[in-house]
């Protein structure tokens, strides 16, 4: 057999390489380049300055915002993982008929038939000062004053995140669970494992790749989000994304770009750490 000439191989990888180059490398490179530019109130000036990074990293606001964003990401991650794992477990192991599994699975996706923003806004009449939740609790006599923390607070932000992104956790974990050979569960039972022991010693370790994939989805989305924070906190909470959006509305593109580079590095670091813990290639 003749060896394929090397240029043929290059030709074969060229289309995908081109797509990556145009839609991934070029935009990121642009952001990196712009992050070193100078700017004033009206224009961006090509330059090579470290000023944008200096201003960003020396400002306590930045650090507080990053801390807040990471906190949102962590809480959301923990809650979506707990709920997502439970839902996936129920559908994968408790629902016996494949038809019912499909139906329940589709049911989970129904919220995705409308846009993110609509789903967020729909919380407002429920959580508001005179919303459904407060009126119901007051009518039941459980509270005298409306609960203020329900809307425009960190609580409502996390609630919206969990509502929006739990499915991203459910799908990969469910996928992992469906790959578990059912005879393994019987083997565990045969060895005297209780339901809980089977969960901890067999199901959980075998779901690790699914958990890792779901975690990457949820953490990267929350780290980069600004719409949810703006809508659900009523401007009271900040996030890194929101910070960038604000800088851009003031036409401070280089400042926003510098922030984007830092955020990108942070998220890459988090994802790399997760990939180190779990080998997700098995799942792909």
């Amino acid at each position, binding site marked *: 057999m003749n060896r394929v000439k090397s240029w043929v191989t290059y030709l074969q990888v060229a289309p995908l390489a081109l797509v990556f180059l145009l839609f991934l490398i070029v935009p990121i490179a642009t952001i990196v380049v712009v992050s070193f530019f100078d700017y004033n109130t009206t224009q961006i000036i090509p330059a090579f300055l470290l000023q944008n990074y200096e201003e960003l990293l020396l400002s306590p606001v930045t650090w507080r915002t990053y801390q807040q964003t990471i906190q949102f990401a962590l809480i959301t991650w923990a809650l979506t993982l707990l709920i997502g794992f439970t839902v996936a477990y129920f559908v994968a192991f408790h629902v016996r008929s494949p038809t019912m599994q499909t139906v329940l699975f589709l049911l989970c996706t129904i919220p995705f038939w409308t846009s993110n923003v609509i789903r967020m806004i729909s919380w407002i009449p429920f959580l508001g000062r005179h919303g459904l939740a407060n009126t119901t609790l007051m009518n039941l006599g459980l509270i005298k004053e409306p609960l203020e923390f329900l809307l425009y607070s960190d609580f409502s932000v996390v609630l919206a995140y969990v509502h929006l992104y739990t499915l991203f956790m459910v799908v990969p974990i469910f996928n992992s669970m469906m790959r578990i050979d059912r005879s393994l569960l*019987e*083997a*565990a*039972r*045969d060895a*005297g494992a209780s339901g809980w022991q089977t969960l901890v*010693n067999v199901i959980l370790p075998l779901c690790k790749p699914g958990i890792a994939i779901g975690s990457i989805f949820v953490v990267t989305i929350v780290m980069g989000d600004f719409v949810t924070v703006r809508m659900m906190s009523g401007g009271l909470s900040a996030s890194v994304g929101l910070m960038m959006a604000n800088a851009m509305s003031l036409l401070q593109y280089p400042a926003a770009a510098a922030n984007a580079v830092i955020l990108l590095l942070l998220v890459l670091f988090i994802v790399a750490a997760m990939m180190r813990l779990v080998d997700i290639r098995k799942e792909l």
Partner: protein
Amino acid sequence: MAKQPDIELVSLTKRYGETLAVDSIGLLIPAGSYCCLLGPSGCGKTTTLRMIAGHEEASEGDIILGAENITGLPPAARGTAMMFQSYALFPHLDCTDNVAFSLKMRGVDKDTRRARAVEMLKRVHMDAYGGRLPAQLSGGQQQRVALARALITDPQVLLLDEPLSALDPFLRVKMREELKSLQTRLGICFIHVTHSQDEAMALADLVVVMNGGRIEQAAPPREVFNRPASAFVARFIGGHNVLPAAVARAGAGAGPFVAIRADRVSVQAGTSAAAGATSLQGVARSVEYLGSTVQVGIDVIGLDTLSATLSEARFDASPVRPGEPVLLSWNPEDVHVLGR
């Protein structure tokens, strides 16, 4: 060694909705014996095994182990251990941890359980592979690890669900020997589900032939082969020609069929007017040379294809070719009258 218990199944029944998977079977498996549940797929043999293991609930009837009724007990409390068809080794644990799994579930501390697991792996000659994951082992090696895992709880009964079906033919024979010698050494009862009559014949002290959720015959292998209880048994275990009793002119009052072992039939080329009570006229359909024996298939008008197994020397003395007319004959004492 403590006295090993017998196992008794008392009118054990399993229903799935309207379907009857196991139909009120009764069976006594003596202590320390190697029992094979043999039958075609869907005959209820695996369901029976799973009911003994506790992975399937019995609809009716009892399972008695020694003096104890274990019908309602959870799998781990029965004194049974199961080896699964695909071995069901935990893919994320190495061999040692796989074997130590049930000890871990009982709260045995790490050093003790790993030491015992290594000891058990030694018994199946797998101690050199303790650190490997199941995916890094061959089928035969996985089977040994699965055996070690099942045996670490010192079960009184080992249940094996088609343990050899995943192996290639050469390895199958080798592992078959190992299973038998292990059973002899341990002295515990093995219950082995299989659809291969060779396997059952080679291994079992007690062959239980099942069909349609019922036991057709439960007997030692030689008895099953020499005195099959029914036409189904004679056909399923092979090596028999099942004929309507009228054709073989068997004595009146017997069942509708008789069986004649294929190696007790002689074949002669040519036609003969002497076709009588112990012979039939037919046409050779196929001749297969199998090494030490030659298998001749014969078409006889009005009957299923019959077969004759001849030694090479006997075949050479009177060779036949496909398409030739032949005369089949047998001795009257080789006609076995089937009950059903």
